[in-house]
């Protein structure tokens, strides 16, 4: 929005963007200051993008932009114009969980679940870049995400299990 010096409302300045979200093109008029996280949650209805800290530390809002993870609370929707975004909602196919989601479930790698979307997306990038990571590489690969419930050990096991399964042919 724009306001003059007295605070009077002068109508919002908006920009049209077109973003491919989970394979579908979404066109919207957005304010330049709209965070990508809020665009995905409020304009696209993708609540799996969780907002935990809004200052780029917790990683709950992690999504993939052009195949690379970004913390969507730290970028603006206008920066994603013309790009492809994938959120956790895009992973399960025909009602079947993605192998990463499946592994998180089987190894009890989530409790309250608020950080889970971000961990799943961070794991996806990690395994795309390194299909057979060592424990240390997993720890480093997930160091941008905070989980307060699990103590991480079951998350490592989920990543290892997912890696085994995805190596075996997704």
């Amino acid at each position, binding site marked *: *929005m724009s*306001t003059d010096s*007295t*605070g*009077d*409302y002068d109508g919002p300045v908006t920009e049209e963007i077109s973003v491919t979200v989970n394979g579908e093109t979404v066109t919207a008029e957005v*304010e330049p*200051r709209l965070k990508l996280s*809020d665009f995905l949650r*409020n304009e696209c209805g*993708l*609540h*799996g*993008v*969780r*907002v*935990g*800290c*809004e*200052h780029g*530390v*917790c990683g*709950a809002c992690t999504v993939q932009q052009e195949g690379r993870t970004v913390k969507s609370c730290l970028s603006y929707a206008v920066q994603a114009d013309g790009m492809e975004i994938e*959120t*956790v*909602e895009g*992973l*399960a196919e025909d009602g079947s*969980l993605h192998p990463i*989601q499946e592994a998180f*479930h*089987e190894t*009890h790698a*989530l*409790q*309250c*679940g*608020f*950080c*889970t*979307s971000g961990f*799943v997306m961070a794991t996806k990038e990690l395994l795309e870049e390194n299909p057979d990571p060592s424990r*240390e590489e*997993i*720890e*480093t690969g*997930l*160091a941008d*995400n*905070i*989980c*307060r*419930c*699990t*103590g*991480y*050990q*079951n*998350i*490592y096991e989920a990543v290892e299990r997912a890696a085994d399964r995805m190596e075996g042919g997704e």
Partner: protein
Amino acid sequence: MSEQESVTDRVFGSSVERREDRSILTGVAEYTDEKLPDAAHVAILRSQYAHATLESVDVDQAENRDDVVAVFTGADVEESGIPNDIPTAWSLPGLVTPQYRIIATDKVRHTGDAIAAVVAEDRYAAHNALGDIDVTYDRLDAVTEPDEAVDSDVTVHEEAPDNVAFDFTIGDADAVSEAFSAADHVTSVDLEQPRIIPNAVEPRAAAADYDPDSDDLTVWMTSQNPHLHRMLMSTATLGHPEHKLRIVAPEVGGGFGSKIYHYPDEAITAWCAKQLGRAVTWQATRREGYITDCHGRDHVTEAQLAVDTDGSIRGLRVETHAGLGAHLSQFATATPSYLYATILSSEYDIPAIHCRVIGAFTNTTPVDAYRGAGRAEGIYVTERIVDAAASELGMDPAEIRRTNLISPDEFPFETSVAMVYDSGEYETAMDRALELVEYDELRDRQRELRDDDRYLGIGIANFVESAGLSPSKAAGELGAAAGGWEAGVVRFHPSGTVTVACGTADQGQGHRTTFAQVAAEELGVPLEDVDVVEGDTDAVPQGMGTYGSRSGPVGGGAIATSARKVVEKAKRIAAHSLEASVDDVEFDDGEFSVVGAPDRSVTIQEVALEAYLGHDIPGDAEPGLEATSYYDPENFTFPFGTHVAVVEVDPETGEVDLQTYVAVDDCGEQINPMIVEGQVHGGIAQGVGAALYEGAVYDDTGTLVTGSMNEYALPRAHQLPDYETDSTVTPSPHNPIGVKGVGESATIAAAPAVVNAVVDALEPFDVDHLDMPLSNERVWRAIDAATEGDS
């Protein structure tokens, strides 16, 4: 536990996968912020200063913005005539209870105090408008430390000129004096337990919808105890009739205590909805959470242990200044008094204990129960001072503990601080932990490494937790303003499936899975035929909520009690159908049969149908098949165990490398070992976080320096070791399902285990204590001080 995967065909006790996971993993699970997407947004102006008089609050410019719906101040709230006083839920003798308004009027006492609330069309607009509110402050000096507060010139509340809210004592002071006179040796430790910021990853949130025609007010919120929130909002803040107020806790993203309390924010949100007659929603920003979510701990303690040269403990004396923050939150008084002082005996037979706690107001965020609440602080004191005594006596830390353990034949064991421990096999768990960590070999290795100037440390922490809050009558006698029961409903449907409702409220613990296991086992029905409802005051009759490791023992106890009532009624109907006497009918695995004539049988599902048809049931029976129980535990439950941490300290940098962590927990019967292990993992991480990384820091002005995730060090994946966990099973003799609870245990044990390990590593430098967090700098300075002049 991982090596003991259950092979039983019982549903209770097996690691069934969680039914909560799928909606979370696919992103469709709805937390509070998803509940009213079209609502107007509330943003709350917090105080710029930790302590100031409010001279004026000018909201005109903010109100004039086109995208702002309304702006409200403390005066507006006062004028509305609501009760407007967030209460403490636990009274202590002489307690000072100043009014805690939902929006400040004349004075602000910490930086989280609300000064005004903006309602705007969206969240961005609401936050923008905060900057247009003009507040004139008359700034006052601030006090932040509890021990300094009692001698300070700063007065937080006029009602407490010395900032003392309460001065609590427990135990026999004369007996302790005698013990100290008689003992061979006295060990003293002065220690501080810094504030912990709970940091549930989901920020607190509330969304409120009001229908003026019906007077129905619905509030979705991040709550660990929706019924408690309903009662407090009805009676203490909003004055809205309790039967017209519905609280819903949808998916809740972690709590660890911080979502127990009634904060101003949900009351402000609901009050705005009523004022405006439209739906409004509020979600804390993370920085807002840091200054408003209740913190934990904040103790400054002087402790002395009277001990004989053979390691026998004669007495313990503790004096603690506990920071309460600027306002009394609900359990701010109970946590550092009855939840703290009564656990100081840990696993030991300590004949005389005396504890004094001075609760002090400071210009800081209110302090209340955080995972381990009181028990964590108490066990930390005892486990630290026992280690210090061992060091001074030249004893092995394991041996001094073994010398003083309460033995299995002494239960029920009454401590000298008013607890009656229910059951325990302390030495068995301790031996298992020492065996797993290879204790003797580690001690050998420690000696060898020291010759190479490498510093390995081994830290043991035993613990007992008073869990399952709590027997109502006992709590009432000690000052509680609430009961400690839990409500559980078990209802068969005519087709034979079952709905369970419980007054607890999950924030990640997996109740929908574990409570279904409890009911399915009791009723002998398939697990998938049981659904669990929680977190909605319209769907659950009453409830006390989830905290204090109570959901398993007390919620589970309520569900089992109701299931047993259902089986009893079903048995009468079955006997009627089978034309047998009730005494001749037995129930096993969902089937009623006549003793000695097993072909004469009927399933509980068939009985359920008959109960709802009502065509052919005993003449004195009502139709229907359901039961509600208010299970009131006869005692606390007492989980226990031994944790061992192994660290290596780099003397050049002070860096602590936590290499091994072994946890042996006994939480009684385990409903779901996978979930128990998960609770232990998470608990360890929080205890390790406190020991090594966390700790809130205020500056002298009362500004929270560690005010966001950028400054406050939450442990990350690479900062935690692999945990090796195991368990023993000593059922609680008085709990209906033998469960003791596990939510807080590991957090209680982990901090002293890690600190003991670091202090043990530094023994060659004559370091006898270090306060948490054991940052590289703090450890390095201790080593540097000890070696000054050596280099």
